[in-house]
């Protein structure tokens, strides 16, 4: 994927550029708001990673400008201010996701991958399928190998979120935010608990595991 990274801190930018490059992305880096705005408005990118506090032109102003110019590229905002209202403000300005510094690189990578748009399906999706596991989005029913699986509402939401991001890593925080709407970090491992229940329910004798744990990052649903 082609990414634009707008970050003024030289060291952070160099680290992210190298790490994202190692993960297989092509990264353009802009060190100032002005350069960032020029690149964002001029070149097609898959995802823009935008620092909120930049010298000269701040991140939110850039975001508003490119959204006003009808640039629909997904934007991940990075910020050092983790205030409660700041996230809302960032999303209202047209951001698609929000990550508070300092963060683990795995978290950033997972979120960048989750943001990248896949080519739109030709038909409206009514079902998600990974190997023999299938979700019917209309009746909200789950089957594996044709056998029906009963899930609690939360477990269903969790599975749907994983399946929508099939093949990509989903972090614990991403799940807390999207499934439970928790924008803070509970001390208890609730994601792990729910995940192990979900795994137990969709496990089938002899069939391979579909939900994989990605060490140090999160979970991933993919074909074995």
């Amino acid at each position, binding site marked *: 994927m082609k990414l634009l990274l707008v970050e003024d801190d030289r060291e952070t930018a160099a680290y992210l550029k190298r790490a994202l490059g190692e993960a297989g992305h092509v990264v353009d880096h802009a060190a100032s708001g002005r350069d960032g705005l020029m690149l964002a408005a001029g070149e097609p990118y898959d995802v823009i990673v935008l620092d909120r506090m930049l010298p000269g032109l701040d991140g939110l102003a850039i975001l508003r400008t490119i959204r006003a110019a009808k640039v629909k590229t997904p934007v991940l905002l990075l910020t050092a201010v*983790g*205030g*409660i*209202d700041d996230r809302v403000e960032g999303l209202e300005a047209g951001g698609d996701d929000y990550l*508070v510094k*300092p963060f683990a690189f795995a978290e950033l990578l997972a979120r960048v991958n989750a943001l990248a748009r896949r080519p739109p399906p030709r038909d409206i999706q009514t079902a998600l399928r990974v190997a023999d596991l299938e979700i019917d989005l209309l009746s909200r029913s789950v089957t594996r190998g044709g056998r029906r699986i009963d899930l*609690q*509402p*939360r477990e269903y939401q969790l599975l749907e979120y994983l399946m929508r991001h099939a093949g990509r890593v989903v972090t614990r925080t991403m799940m807390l935010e999207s499934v*439970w*709407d*928790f*924008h*803070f*970090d*509970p*001390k*208890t*491992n*609730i994601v792990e*608990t*729910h995940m192990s*229940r979900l795994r137990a329910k969709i496990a089938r004798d002899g069939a391979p595991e579909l939900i994989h744990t990605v060490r140090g990052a999160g979970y991933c649903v993919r074909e074995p």
Partner: protein
Amino acid sequence: MFRSSTLRLAALYTIAFAIAVVALGAVTLLTTRAALARQFDKRILFEAGAMAREYRAEGLSGVVQAVRERDRTPGALDYGLLAPGGGAMAGRLSAPGAPLGWSVIAVDDHRGEPERTRLYASVLPGGYRLLIGDDADRVEALDGVLIRAFVLAFLGVLVLGVAGGYGLSRGVERRITSINATAEAIIDGDLSRRVPVRGGDDELDRLAITLNRMLDRISGLMENLRQVSQDVAHDLRTPLTRLRQRLEASLASPAGPEAVEGALEDLDTILGTFAALLRISQIEGGARRAAFRATDLVDIARTVVDAFAPSAEDTGGSLSLEATGPAMIDGDPELLTQMLVNLVENALRHAGPAATVRVKCLPPERPRTGAQILVVDNGPGVPAGERARVFDRFHRLESSRSTPGNGLGLALLAAVARLHGAEVSLHDVNPGLEVRVAFPARD
């Protein structure tokens, strides 16, 4: 002195009143003068008529006699009767040149001094002329009396105005000075000072009360800031020191990735504490009220119980929700969720394995009371002496030192509750602890 706004205002009012007094005096003077002049003229005309009647009844001799008689009467008008040729026949007045009708001439009075006289000349049958006059200065003499009265009134207004204005401005100035002194003392660093309130409920008192409330708020925020920096120093230094030692040790004896992983874990703990502190101080800053909206405590409780019940069950305990109907409050759902998560995690942790924790939502019991949320566990509870202190930042019961937690959970609970105007109380339910958060009635 003239920089006092009250005094300026009083002076302005005094001048306005003085001008009003002068205008009133002038109008009174003019109307009185006109009325008096009309009355004097009427008296002269009446006498002229009387003389004409006298002539018709008694003839010339009757008129001569009447004139002489009146001349002798003190306070009467001045008269003069002239022959057709102009010779004086009777009376003090003799002005042969006076025209018919009204005129003003100078006549020598009884002391021989000239005196302005208002004269009315009429012709009796036979060509005799009758002159009737009156002292023209009598009206002006009355003017003098009126003017003196008004000058006195004018002086009175001036004196009262100046004295009243001075007194008023001194009173206001004294109170402004005390507000000023308070402000100066605060600028110099004594934030405990407050503006004195007299208790009269006037506008200056209301101003003082508002200022004092503002000062309370400011000192609350300052206290909060001080507390945060103290907390940061207190509770971040220890883990930072540990992290430093770990890194130093790994430098001395090149260790594997385990050492780095341990350091990262330490770092995450520190960042978590840091985030919690910032969040608490942000909530205590009170800037979140704008995000308040109608919220059902039952929805929040259901989300939290759903999320944590499996974890509770995995350790052999249970977490359940008891609610009869919606429990609506005005609040911030995100903060309330975090508050309840902290409460539930706290209860599960303190009650240990096989913890039975119940979350209860109560709708308002009576009008003018609010909804409540209760978290009841079956743990060892909190000793009565410790109950007030558990809400302090970093306070941890001795018994829980060995369990994870940064001691900020209940401080955050207290901050969220305060923001919502809710009251938190701890109750012993033998065995176990009940934490009750009672929200205020909705507007």
